[in-house]
């Protein structure tokens, strides 16, 4: 990771809202005196949600909130697969590709998305809306094929459902612009 370079000007000087800062405070108090670093994973989730992905600027900001060294945050952020360390589309499809999901056609559905959005796994659609990632078992094996988008699990997927979801998200994004 390019730890020393500032890699996202948009995140320079980023800060949480007042409500978010109250939440950070609540989380840090869940651990004994001096052990508040335990709140790091959840605060990083909040950072990712608010700023889209974890740039060095966002991680440095989290370090300042926790009063720890930036390297301690980089170390953690690079270990866990839910964190995006590069810019991603507005909607990130995290599609499960592990064995049990494959018994119910996960791979065919992934191929369908690739063709539909004209992207490879890891890529983002030209309009910047959708990123496709494959992930390992999400604990939804009985409801396959499935993917996670944001905090939501979309289960029992098929081509029609994918079409509807993508269409709805396109509309949602258009209405916000």
């Amino acid at each position, binding site marked *: 990771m390019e730890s020393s370079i500032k890699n996202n000007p948009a995140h320079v000087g980023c800060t949480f809202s007042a409500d978010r800062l109250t939440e950070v405070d609540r989380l840090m108090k*869940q651990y*004994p005196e001096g*052990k508040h*670093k*335990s*709140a*790091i*994973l*959840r605060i*990083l*989730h909040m950072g990712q949600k608010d700023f889209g992905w974890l740039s060095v600027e966002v991680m440095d900001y989290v370090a300042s909130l926790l009063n720890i060294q930036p390297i301690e945050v980089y*170390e*953690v952020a690079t*270990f*866990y*697969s*839910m*964190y995006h360390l590069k810019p991603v589309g507005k909607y990130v499809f995290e599609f499960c*590709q*592990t*064995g*049990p999901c*494959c*018994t*119910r056609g996960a791979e065919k559905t992934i191929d369908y998305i690739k063709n539909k959005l004209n992207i490879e796994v890891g890529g983002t659609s030209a309009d910047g809306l959708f990123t496709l990632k494959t*992930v*390992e*078992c*999400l*604990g*939804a*094996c*009985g*409801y*396959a094929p499935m993917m*996670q988008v944001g*905090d*939501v*699990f979309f289960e029992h997927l098929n081509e029609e459902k994918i079409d509807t979801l993508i269409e709805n998200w396109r509309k949602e994004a258009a209405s916000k612009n």
Partner: protein
Amino acid sequence: MAGKKILLANDHVEGIRYYDAYRKHGGYTSVEKALKMTSDDIVEEVKKSGLRGRGGAGFPTGMKWSFLAKPEGVPRYLLCNADESEPGTFKDRYLMEYMPHSLVEGMIVSSFALGANTSYIYIRGEYMWIVSILEEAIAEAYKNGWLGKNIQGSGYDLDLYVTPGAGAYICGEETALIESLEGKRGNPRMKPPFPAIKGLWGCPTVVNNVETIATVPHIINMGGDAYAGIGVGRSTGTKLISACGNIRKPGVYEIEMGISVEEFIYSDEYCGGIADGKKLKAMIAGGSSVPILPHNLITKTAAGEPRLMTYESLADGGFISGTMLGSGGFIIYDEDQCIVHNTYTLARFYHHESCGQCSPCREGTGWMEKVLHRIENGHGKMSDIDLLVDVAKKIEGNTICPLGDAAAWPVAAAIRHFRDEFEWHIQEPEAAQRGNYPHWENRPEVVA
């Protein structure tokens, strides 16, 4: 026969997710009872119940609790393992999503028994919506005097919090879970010292699975002996099984230990048989880490006995012809499923999830993935099969934590039982690209 239900007896009651309905249906009575008992008495009941850890290893819970060190003036911690990341396993999710108070109640009784005043539920980060469900249940429990200071006037104090992870199977391993809860990378620790002596922040700690903890209130309510009367032999009580793969009714089922595997797969009360009228080819009984079994060893053991849903019967025959109950992640493969492909996806999973501390696991899982990938894609060599067996052997037992074993066993078992299918992929790559292995039903005789 309709199976006995304990954990999910009330899962369909309207509003059971919330305090009022949960309380009305007997919720929190075990806390009232437990607070009048001594902690030793509670541990004794749990020992008598024969309850074994539901996270995968099946270690007796009462015994684990009795190992907890109790030095003067040092806090002790109970951590609930809700990391649930073993492929095929999605049972804890069901319990937490639909009956969050059953876990909260279990945490209170178990924390009291262990003398813990602060406890945490560590849940996989992908289950973020369940974090909110649990926090809502916890808030209700505080409001009604089941958490906080001086619970129900007993003088006992307990705070309970939820900490989400962020995507790492390894954090289900108990020492990695502790590291992660301390806000670090999830690298497993060397043992000893065991968590019972030095765990979270260096303090004595017990880590238990969601289902294990949610069972404790029922044991306190009915008594350890009564719980031990359910099930068969050393497999007492009930078990949640998450069933997936090519079955008619995937989902989470509570079974009484000791029903037959045949009943579980084919009865309409459970899996409802193989989907689309296909034939049963293979089964993984307890999450992707346990050995896969071919169709001839599923409903019967090698000795011809009916195979039962118990720790002992599933393990009958050892790794030659048996498997493990594990986490209860039950995966069924029909005749259209390719064993080589399935083994490859599992190898990829373990490679992806290896924390990278130990070279046998970090490198070995990568080799297995690569070799399986080339076999699957028609570029395998016959020597690759023994190479895989060899790599698996070199990982097993040579790592800090059991992820290495968990990665090695599925590969070793797939080759043990389906070597001919691997050979076919290598010798007839074109046919293998086009269709399914035709001779899968002829399994070699396995000597008991």
